Structure formats: structure tokens, C-alpha cells
């Protein structure tokens, strides 16, 4: 018998080798208690959270919690059904109304996760004979959506406008075309030149899908994302987003002005063949989305945090993923996995949680310590974080 698990032997060996050095498992962290959007108890130690995507700190918002508790009482713990059978309750429709208002778009469709939103929309709209042109650094959910569908998949070099245009030009006359971009690329925290790229995509007759998972709530005048910020949201055919970042709960969505969009509810398999979100989850999401429309002060504070941390880490001599702070993600580039894991552990001992990111999630085989800031981090916490990085970086010998 061939052991089907033998294909995992290289990663099992790499993991065993790393843990044999006595290091804490970077992928086995448990939070015993969550004190606030920015602080949790990990291994009995109070730990500042700097790797949670909780950009706008909505997870403990009193109005959000109250809405969820009310929905639990009124509608129960779960729907036990698909959105297109018995799984659509009034809170699901209300949540979609909140999204339509937030983005100023005609249609909104809520999925059970952001992963499923990409999987569902991409695999359904791009079919046999169509072409998907996408950035090579796209999120796993985008790649999996491509793999699940029957379209021809054509990647281009990250954020390379010319590489994208060259490929668009070579697509056979008359074929359907879908260009897939992200507003913020979550590994390095860099943003896409959406205005230029979308203009070119439109010139070549392509439809455009933009994943704004890491920009919703704080990029753009109304927090609609990078496309809004660059003044090209009207040219985006499909915006994909998530509730598991700024919104502070779980779930995914697609908003669109396409006149036939509603048919997706019947033909999109990752929407049809899974249970809908619990009513309490969509109720918290709807409340949070509506509050995010009026969060200009929090947005300003989050940007201040991002600038302070970026400057502080750069001054200490760390190599960062972007030359300037352009999102709420500050990515610190590590020399290799071993020292990255050691640095991660040293920070945890200091009382700071960041994400350790490694290939294949990262571009160009990099090991990264990814910091995602929260609008609820105080200015003092950001200074504390910079001090922790300094001590840990010197201990591990990275700076």
C-alpha cells in the first residue's frame, strides 16, 4: 500500500527540524483569554496582538456585541440550511443591505467565508474558453477559485502593468476575459496601481474583480478600499471582501452593479451547497459595517499607528516589505525561516504576537514577520511594540 501521506514527508521533516531546536511552535499558539481587540492572554502572559487583521477593532464594539446577542435570542444559534433553501433569515438580507449602502452598489451577496466568496465567484463566472488574467501574488482563495473553474489561467508578474497588458493583448479575439487584482497584497502590505491596471483591463474588454479584503474600512474616503482611494471603483465589476478583518467577525461577500448579478445565488456552488452564516454573525457584521461608514477618526488613528510603526522599525534597521507605509500591514523581512522563527519566539516572550509567514504563502520564498495594526492600538502601545522589536532583534542578531 502506498501511504498517501508520504507526499507530506518533506514538510513533516522541516517542521520536526525546526521544533527540535526547542522553539515554541509558531503555528500552535492558543489564546486563553482575549481581553480586548489588542490584548490577549497567551501562555499565561498578557500579549499585545499585532497579527490579527482586526484593523478597526470592532470585535468588542458594544453595539456589535448587542446586535449579535439579540439575534441569538431571536433567531437561534444557526440556520441549518443553504442560503437558497431554508438558510436566508432577515438578518442575512439586512446584512446585504448594509453592504449595498456601504459600497453604493446595486447587489450584494454574502458567503460563509471570504475564501468561499473568491472560490465561488471566480469559478462560476469564468468558464470554459474564458481567460483569467491574474497577479502571480494572488491569495490562495483566488488561485483555488481558478483551479476549480474551467477557464484558461494566465498569471503575470506582481503589480507589473506591462506584463498584464502584454498578456491581455495575446488573448484570442472574442474570448471572455476576467482580470483579478487585489487592493492590498497581504504578505508585504503593498498596494496595487489599480487605476492604471483597471483602465488597461477595460480597454481590452475585460471584466475586473478586485479583492479588497485588507483595505475595507480604512482605505479610501469612505473606507471602500484601494479602488475608491484611487478613484476607479466605478470601473470594478466585482468587489470581493470579508467580514473577518475590519468587520470583526467571519464571512465573505461580493458586491457588484452587474444587472444580472442575482443569478449567482442559483448557479454559484460554494454559495448553494453550504450552510449560511449563523444569524448572530450576520447581525454583528451588519452593525459593524454601518458603524464603519462613520469611522473617520479611527481611520486617521490607524494611519498614524501605521506611519509610526513603519518609521520606528525602519530606524531600528529592520528590512520592511514596503518603502512607505501604504496599508495597515507592516511586513518585516527575515533573513531565513530559522531566524524568523527565533525572532517570532523572542517577540512572544516580550509579550507581542505577530504572524510568522513562510513559503508557500509568501512571495519569492521569503520568511516574514507580518504586523497588522489596529485602530485601537494606543500611541503608547505602538512605542512599546517598537521597544520589543529592538530588544528581540538584538537578541537574535537581526539588527
Amino acid at each position: 500500500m502506498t501511504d498517501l501521506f508520504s507526499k507530506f514527508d518533506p514538510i513533516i521533516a522541516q517542521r520536526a527540524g525546526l521544533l527540535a531546536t526547542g522553539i515554541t511552535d509558531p503555528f500552535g499558539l492558543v489564546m486563553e483569554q482575549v481581553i480586548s481587540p489588542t490584548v490577549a492572554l497567551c501562555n499565561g502572559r498578557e500579549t499585545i496582538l499585532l497579527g490579527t487583521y482586526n484593523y478597526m477593532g470592532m470585535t468588542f464594539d458594544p453595539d456589535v456585541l448587542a446586535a449579535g446577542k439579540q439575534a441569538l435570542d431571536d433567531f437561534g444559534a444557526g440556520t441549518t440550511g443553504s442560503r437558497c433553501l431554508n438558510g436566508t433569515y432577515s438578518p442575512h438580507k439586512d446584512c446585504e443591505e448594509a453592504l449595498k449602502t456601504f459600497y453604493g452598489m446595486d447587489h450584494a451577496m454574502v458567503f460563509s467565508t471570504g475564501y468561499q466568496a473568491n472560490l465561488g465567484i471566480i469559478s462560476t463566472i469564468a468558464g470554459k474558453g474564458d481567460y483569467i488574467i491574474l497577479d502571480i501574488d494572488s491569495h490562495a482563495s483566488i488561485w483555488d477559485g481558478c483551479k476549480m473553474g474551467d477557464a484558461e489561467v494566465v498569471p503575470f508578474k506582481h503589480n507589473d502593468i506591462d506584463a498584464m497588458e502584454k498578456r491581455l493583448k495575446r488573448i484570442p479575439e472574442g474570448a471572455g476575459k476576467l482580470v483579478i487584482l487585489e487592493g492590498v497584497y497581504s504578505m508585504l502590505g503593498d498596494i496595487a496601481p489599480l487605476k492604471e491596471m483597471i483602465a488597461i483591463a477595460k480597454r481590452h474588454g475585460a471584466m475586473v474583480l478586485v479583492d479588497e479584503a485588507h483595505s475595507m474600512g480604512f482605505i479610501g474616503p469612505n473606507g471602500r478600499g484601494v479602488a475608491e482611494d484611487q478613484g476607479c471603483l466605478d470601473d470594478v465589476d466585482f468587489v470581493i471582501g470579508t467580514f473577518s478583518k475590519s468587520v470583526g467577525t467571519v464571512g465573505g461577500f461580493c458586491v457588484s452593479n452587474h444587472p444580472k448579478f442575482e443569478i449567482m445565488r442559483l448557479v454559484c456552488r460554494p454559495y448553494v451547497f453550504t450552510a449560511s452564516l449563523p444569524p448572530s454573525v450576520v447581525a454583528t457584521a451588519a452593525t459593524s459595517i454601518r458603524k464603519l461608514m462613520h469611522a473617520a477618526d479611527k481611520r486617521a488613528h490607524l494611519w498614524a499607528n501605521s506611519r509610526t510603526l513603519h518609521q520606528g522599525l525602519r530606524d531600528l534597521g529592520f528590512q520592511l516589505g514596503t518603502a512607505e507605509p501604504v496599508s495597515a500591514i507592516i511586513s518585516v523581512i527575515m533573513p531565513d525561516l530559522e531566524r524568523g522563527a527565533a525572532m517570532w519566539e523572542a517577540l512572544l516572550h516580550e509579550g507581542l504576537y505577530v504572524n510568522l509567514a513562510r513559503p508557500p504563502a509568501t512571495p519569492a520564498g521569503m520568511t516574514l514577520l507580518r504586523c497588522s495594526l489596529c485602530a485601537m492600538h494606543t500611541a503608547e502601545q505602538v512605542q512599546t511594540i517598537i521597544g520589543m522589536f529592538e530588544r528581540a532583534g538584538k537578541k537574535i542578531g537581526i539588527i
Partner: protein
Amino acid sequence: MDRAATAEKIAALIAPFNKKGIAVTDATSFAGDLEFDSLTVMDFVAEIEDAFDIIISMNQQAEIETYGQLVDAVVKLQG
């Protein structure tokens, strides 16, 4: 462009990626013999696409394992 000319042009493009300088034949595999990882494949495919002004989609790439198969595919894609 005929097969011989296409093969010659591709061989020239492989050279900078052929770190161990192995002799390339039609049976030479990219993953096994030339030890291309996924990042190298991406850069290499982009060079081939630009050199011949074609698209080799991921779907088509999945069918190409050897130098000979790549030459055949590029000849076909040039129409």
C-alpha cells in the same frame, strides 16, 4: 518559425536558468533535471511568452514536463 528554429531559440532562453549546465535534450525535464522550482517556472514561462508573443496558460503548462514538449507546444501556439 519551424521546429528547429523554435528549439534553438528556447534552448538559448533556458541557458541562464540552467545553473548546473546540463546537456539539454528533448527528454530533459524542467522539474527533475533542470530543478526548476515554482518561482523559476514563472520567470521562465514569462520569458518564453514574451519571446514568442504567445500565452502559455497554467492549464497548458500542466501538460508540459520536458524541453521537447515545450518546443512542440510553442510551435503549435505560434499557429
